[in-house]
């Protein structure tokens, strides 16, 4: 980053999550330590004899928000993205912007899987003539960013980084780059996922990635706890409005936070397992801090990726200690997936929003269900109740997001 590089600020935020249908209710739910996990109501849990019978479904169904016509023409992953984008855009004050200076970068880890598999059912049961013409635009991974580009007339570019559960964070990193390099003044950026369908559940369960605490869903997501046994599948979207600082200032926009930098790395270790010593994680964290001209001692808060898997949480612990050294002891670490579940390609975006809210409110949300902290975890995990963040003046927070494939992404935000 050069001294003349443009600064990137967050001027709008929107979300629909297992904790609530907007940012306010999601943040309040997280602060209160509420779990969004509950048993699936759908009959397919029994129909397919799934080993996992619960998840973290969106608190407000898209059908309750969008028009019937929109529901029919958009895959659920697009529906969540559109809902969150509308909130974010309104929150940003509905900016007046040249369409050629507005971009959309909205990611998904899995894409339009409901549309794909429903269309396949139709093909097998009723034949090719019954497959609807909108099947491709609904199932394609770039469907959500396309829907948002269309709705907001974003013509500077429409992009879809795909890096599994790091996708949402990568979208923010890409969007910030577009602003820093001058390709856009405003970017609608974030992630979305709608994969609560029997096939992904069976697939994640087959690799033993999901918690099987069927009898007690609210206590199943327990990052850093000794009894953790996998993640809880969630769904929803998080979208932010990123804007160049001068553009935001010129229009008198309210600024939530500054997106200082991003660090990106790849493990090249295993397609699904994390590198056990956290070396790749550490490189992403270090790169992010270095790009922001910060030292580990400048950091106040981390929203960890921490999905509640036995291997992943410990690797992140090691990676953070490797990158931050003893300074990690002064950092309040929250694992909000303990409440939201794991929103896959939306996780990095939703957790970026929670990071920004934490800096604004100068309060770290709790990590619930940590009854017995894993002795291999040395981080200062914020447990049980929310905690005020130490520090006067500007606060700095880091959000981690990692994905199958070995993707590691760290984003650094600062309060304003």
């Amino acid at each position: 980053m050069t001294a003349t590089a443009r600064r990137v600020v967050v001027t709008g935020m929107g979300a629909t999550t297992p904790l609530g249908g907007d940012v306010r209710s999601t943040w309040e739910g997280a602060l209160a330590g509420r779990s969004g996990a509950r048993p699936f109501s759908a009959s397919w849990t029994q129909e397919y004899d799934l080993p996992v019978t619960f998840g973290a479904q969106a608190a407000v169904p898209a059908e309750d928000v969008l028009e019937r016509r929109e529901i029919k023409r958009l895959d659920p992953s697009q529906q969540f993205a559109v809902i969150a984008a509308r909130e974010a855009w309104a929150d940003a004050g509905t900016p007046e912007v040249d369409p050629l200076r507005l971009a959309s970068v909205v990611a998904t880890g899995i894409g339009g899987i409901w549309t794909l598999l429903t269309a396949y059912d139709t093909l097998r049961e009723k034949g090719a003539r019954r497959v609807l013409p909108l099947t491709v635009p609904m199932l394609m991974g770039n469907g959500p960013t396309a829907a948002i580009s269309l709705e907001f007339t974003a013509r500077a570019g429409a992009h879809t980084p795909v890096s599994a559960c790091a996708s949402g964070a990568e979208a923010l990193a890409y969007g910030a780059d577009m602003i820093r390099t001058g390709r856009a003044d405003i970017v609608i950026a974030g992630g979305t996922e709608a994969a609560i369908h029997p096939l992904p559940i069976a697939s994640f369960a087959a690799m033993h990635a999901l918690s099987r605490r069927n009898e007690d869903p609210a206590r199943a997501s327990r990052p850093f706890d000794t009894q953790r046994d996998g993640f809880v599948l969630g769904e929803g979207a998080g979208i932010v409005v990123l804007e160049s600082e001068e553009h935001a200032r010129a229009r008198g926009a309210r600024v939530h936070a500054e997106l200082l930098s991003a660090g990106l790395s790849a493990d090249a270790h295993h397609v699904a397992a994390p590198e056990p010593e956290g070396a790749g994680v550490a490189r992403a964290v270090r790169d992010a801090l270095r790009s922001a001209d910060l030292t580990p001692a400048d950091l106040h808060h981390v929203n960890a990726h921490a999905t509640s898997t036995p291997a992943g949480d410990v690797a992140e612990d090691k990676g953070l200690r490797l990158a931050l050294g003893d300074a990690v002891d002064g950092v309040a670490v929250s694992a909000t997936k303990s409440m939201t579940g794991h929103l896959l390609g939306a996780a990095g975006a939703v957790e970026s929003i929670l990071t920004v809210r934490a800096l604004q409110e100068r309060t770290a949300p709790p990590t619930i269900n940590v009854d017995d902290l894993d002795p291999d975890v040395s981080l200062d995990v914020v447990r049980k109740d929310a905690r005020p963040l130490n520090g006067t003046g500007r606060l700095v927070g880091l959000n981690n997001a990692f994905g199958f494939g070995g993707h590691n992404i760290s984003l650094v935000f600062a309060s304003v």
Partner: protein
Amino acid sequence: MASEQEILSGLAEIVNEETGLPTDSVQADKSFTDDLDIDSLSMMTIVVNAEEKFGVRIPDEDVKNLRTVGDAVAYISQAQG
């Protein structure tokens, strides 16, 4: 077999679900493209749904001849007969 009036109201429901247009705007004399502003992708969706709803087959080569809502009603009525 449905009457032409039943076909018209069934078709209006399909058009409403696809486009959001109010059902009472879907009248026999309206052109799908010029009056109702329905693009080719939406038209194909309407055809697929109409085939399912009315139990008929509307081959692609016939779809281009269905200029108005009335044309479609007449076609479906004849195909059912």
